[in-house]
């Protein structure tokens, strides 16, 4: 992350790198003629044994020629590893591509550091610097980077992404959101093969973080030399034949099929011909009927360990496609999985895995959950019915209901005692932690609850239920998706506590499509979801801190208003508008201290407004890890920090080999 308003991020430089510098410096002093060659020969790079054979046979250039001049040096979590083995894992269903992404798909220009302290570090880029007004960014790539097919990775590939993909209205009608500032796409300017400049219309201080977040991966996914053949600009004559051969309707479909476009596209894992910068490349693709997806080592991968061993250590990935989560759980128990968190890390499975630990040779690796809440109940503050709107907008009503919940009892009953009472607020570990927002109104106090509720709606009917402003009983549905998350039990218990203070709350379980239909058309009374954006990602997923978009369940029309720049939805309250201004200011600022300060102002308003009611912060999540798999880091579980890949899965290794 930028330390100053105008700043530079460069490679930290670890042991082996300094040696190389010293060596080259020495040679330069003697007036060496060819720096490139000496730099390469000054360090003994090593490679996987399987590649030794290929080099010997002459089908692959030597490792020093495949690596860039300044490879990224990854310090292993425990120690330098050994080559070999297959990482076995599993997916569920036909659209689980994000597990592949989380295993092996994160190679942006800048990356999060392993600890997710909020810093960004050079990855494919060697250096990034920005102008004082945060409008102009100059990025230097590492010298001599190569795609998995051996072709060079240069500024032109980035230019191709910005100009021909992000800027192509036919392909992406709405542009690429994270590359825009002031409603316009950043402009690309090539300086030389490894240096380029991106200029934004308005200041865009969080651009380096955007590059490191999951969507930033998009920028380094498309090799111009391969993907340009699917674009009319570059291949006018041959395109029709390619479209016909692929059996698609037009060139945009062809392009998406061959090169993917989104970070999250299924297509990323469907085309073995597409060159990548990732540690493993697809071998058996994730297509329709596939029951096993495999990936193999990328011989041109640009990272090494401190001893100069080219990464990754592990040869292959083998990912089974299962129809059911339970099958995957059984696979773990049967010792058929080397590392898995997705789908199996429900708390209910802890005991199952503990029992099987010895036989399956696994252990559980705990990591913090970046979600900030298990259950957030959002009243619809923009309800279509004016009476309900008035009730829900009464802050005393919401405060009273919050006091009425015995959160600790819910935590014990529904979450095996994990977590602590918490509102919709960033976690303690987050740089944006705000104690007032997190802890206000969380104690269980029926007297206080009734006091606030009496202030709001004192009248009651014969059965003891409170009456609303229209003289009718206050009664509403809380919409829950039982299929997702653990929030059904906690919501049901909450509704019982609310009944006890005279508010007729009913839990309504719905299918998730119906849930989305209702909330998108603003037809819900109250709705439940889990809270993301608990750690550093609070900055990028402020869903429950202010009306950010249509996932903000307490005011979907306000969220739409913000997301569409005032073109859709409904004009929000003055407080929410103030927050929107603050957020825009945060995005412009390149100064971390200022970003934090503005974020605190935004969160303070959220605390004043008390938009939504949270139950508890989730306890740690775990991964099931085979005992012979090493260098696993207890990473945070998040989306913005795609775990575990952002903790460098390329340095996982097996010892003893399987």
């Amino acid at each position: 992350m930028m330390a100053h308003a105008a700043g530079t991020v460069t490679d930290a430089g670890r042991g082996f790198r300094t040696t190389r510098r010293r060596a080259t410096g020495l040679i330069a002093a003697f007036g060496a003629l060819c720096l490139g060659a000496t730099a390469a020969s000054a360090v003994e790079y090593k490679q996987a044994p399987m590649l030794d054979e290929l080099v010997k046979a002459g089908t692959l250039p030597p490792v020093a020629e495949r690596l860039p001049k300044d490879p990224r040096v990854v310090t292993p979590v425990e120690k330098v590893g050994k080559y070999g083995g297959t990482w076995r894992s599993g997916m569920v269903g036909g659209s689980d591509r994000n597990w592949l992404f989380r295993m092996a798909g994160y190679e942006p220009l800048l990356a999060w550091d392993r600890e997710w302290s909020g810093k960004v570090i050079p990855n494919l880029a060697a250096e990034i610097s920005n102008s004082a007004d945060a409008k102009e960014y100059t990025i230097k790539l590492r010298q001599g980077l190569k795609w998995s097919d051996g072709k060079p990775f240069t500024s032109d590939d980035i230019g191709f992404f910005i100009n021909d993909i992000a800027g192509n209205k036919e392909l992406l009608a709405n542009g690429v959101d994270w590359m825009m500032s002031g409603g316009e796409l950043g402009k690309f300017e090539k300086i030389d093969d490894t240096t380029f400049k991106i200029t934004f219309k308005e200041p865009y201080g969080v651009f380096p973080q955007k590059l490191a977040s999951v969507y930033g991966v998009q920028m380094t996914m498309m090799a111009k030399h391969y993907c340009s053949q699917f674009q009319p600009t570059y291949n006018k004559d041959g395109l029709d034949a390619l479209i016909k051969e692929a059996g698609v309707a037009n060139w945009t479909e062809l392009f998406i099929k061959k090169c993917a476009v989104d970070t999250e596209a299924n297509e990323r894992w469907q085309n073995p011909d597409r060159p990548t910068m990732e540690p493993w490349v697809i071998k058996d693709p994730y297509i329709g009927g596939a029951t096993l997806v495999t990936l193999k080592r990328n011989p041109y991968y640009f990272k090494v360990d401190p001893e100069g061993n080219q990464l990754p250590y592990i040869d292959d990935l083998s990912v089974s496609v299962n129809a059911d989560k339970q099958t995957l759980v059984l696979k773990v128990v049967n010792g058929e999985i080397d590392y898995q968190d997705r789908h199996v890390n429900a708390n209910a499975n802890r005991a199952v895995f503990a029992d099987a630990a010895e036989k399956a040779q696994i252990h559980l690796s705990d990591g913090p959950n970046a979600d900030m809440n298990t259950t957030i109940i959002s009243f619809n503050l923009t309800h279509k019915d004016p009476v309900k709107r008035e009730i829900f907008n009464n802050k005393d009503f919401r405060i009273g209901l919050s006091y009425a919940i015995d959160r600790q009892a819910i935590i014990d009953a529904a979450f095996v005692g994990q977590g602590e009472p918490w509102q919709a607020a960033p976690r303690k570990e987050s740089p944006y932690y705000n104690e007032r927002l997190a802890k206000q109104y969380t104690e269980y106090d029926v007297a206080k609850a009734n006091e606030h509720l009496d202030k709001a709606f004192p009248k009651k009917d014969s059965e003891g239920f409170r009456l609303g402003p229209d003289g009718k009983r206050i009664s509403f549905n809380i919409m829950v998706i039982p299929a997702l998350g653990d929030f059904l039990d906690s919501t049901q218990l909450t509704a019982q506590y609310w009944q006890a203070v005279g508010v007729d709350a009913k839990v309504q379980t719905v299918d998730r499509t119906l849930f989305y239909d209702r909330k998108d058309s603003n037809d819900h009374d109250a709705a439940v979801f889990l809270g993301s954006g608990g750690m550093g990602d609070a900055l990028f997923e402020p869903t429950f801190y202010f009306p950010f978009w249509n996932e903000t369940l307490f005011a979907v029309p306000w969220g739409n208003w913000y997301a569409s720049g005032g073109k859709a939805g409904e004009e929000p309250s003055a407080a929410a508008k103030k927050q929107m201004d603050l957020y825009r200011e945060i995005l412009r600022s390149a100064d971390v201290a200022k970003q934090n300060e503005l974020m605190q102002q935004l969160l303070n308003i959220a605390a004043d407004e008390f938009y939504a009611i949270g139950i508890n912060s989730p306890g740690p999540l775990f991964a099931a890890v085979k005992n012979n798999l090493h260098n696993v880091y207890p990473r945070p579980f998040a989306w913005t920090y795609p775990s575990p890949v952002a903790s460098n899965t390329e340095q996982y290794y097996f010892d003893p080999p399987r």
Partner: protein
Amino acid sequence: MLGFIFRRFLWMFPSFFAVTVVAFVIIQLPPGDFVTSYAADLATSGSPADSATLDALRLRYGLDQPMVVQYFTWVGNALKGDLGMSFEYRSPVSDIIWDRLGMTTLVAFCTLAFVWLIAFPVGIYSAVRQYSIGDYVVTFLSFLGMATPSFLLALVVMYLSVEFLGYSVGGLFSPDFVNAPWSWARVVDLVQHLWIPVVVLGVAGIAALVRIMRANLLDELGKPYVETGRAKGLPETTLILRYPTRVALNPFISTVGWVLPVLVSGDVIVSSVLSLPTSGPILIQALKTQDMYLGGALIMFQCILVLIGTLMSDILLAFVDPRIRYDN
């Protein structure tokens, strides 16, 4: 007879048209569409999409069109052999289902063979030796078999095979053979895994068939023609197998039409539990995510199987049973 077959055949066309409409409507019935469920999916994986992106998706998949238009596009393309795109897998439906339908057919026919091979002799034995100890044992076991839910049996068998036989969990192949080309070793591997779904799927079927066979045969055994045969000195085995058993088969033939689709669809839950590469799990998934072209294609194929099966059983019945007269 030929006229009957021809008329029966012609009736298949309107029936087919009707079932495609039903299939399409069923898939459209739940609220929202694929994009809604896709959005929900993204949101729970912590990466929600904004509404502009979702609208663009709707446009791309033609989901903004009225239902009637969507239906005719689908049927029109299907008749040309284009089953449409699967939204979820992002690939043509035909790429997805043919392999799966092949595996489904394999499992189905192995199961059918297994069921018939066991059910007929046991059913005959049970009828001929009515009220013997053997009959009571068979009766008890078949009630037990009918009462056991297949998915539960699948879980138990899978647990046992993992715990005691050291098999890999789920699927029809070991990991080494999943993506391997066909070879003798792969066939052996398949057979090693195939018995689990075959047994699981077959148990309920065997139990039911044994009861039906027993009841039918008992009806026939007391009839005068059996007595006549016996009086004329026919050996008992020949007598039973040649006459009453043939008559008792009548209900099997008339239900052959149902067997085909039941074998294809009845395995949905079991194959999900066992993670079989058959059509069941993807049908469930397609219905859950409203992946309408994929779901529609699978439902359509099942309907076609019902139609073909019913035609087959009608024709067979007309041949086999002289008591049935279709022609006036």
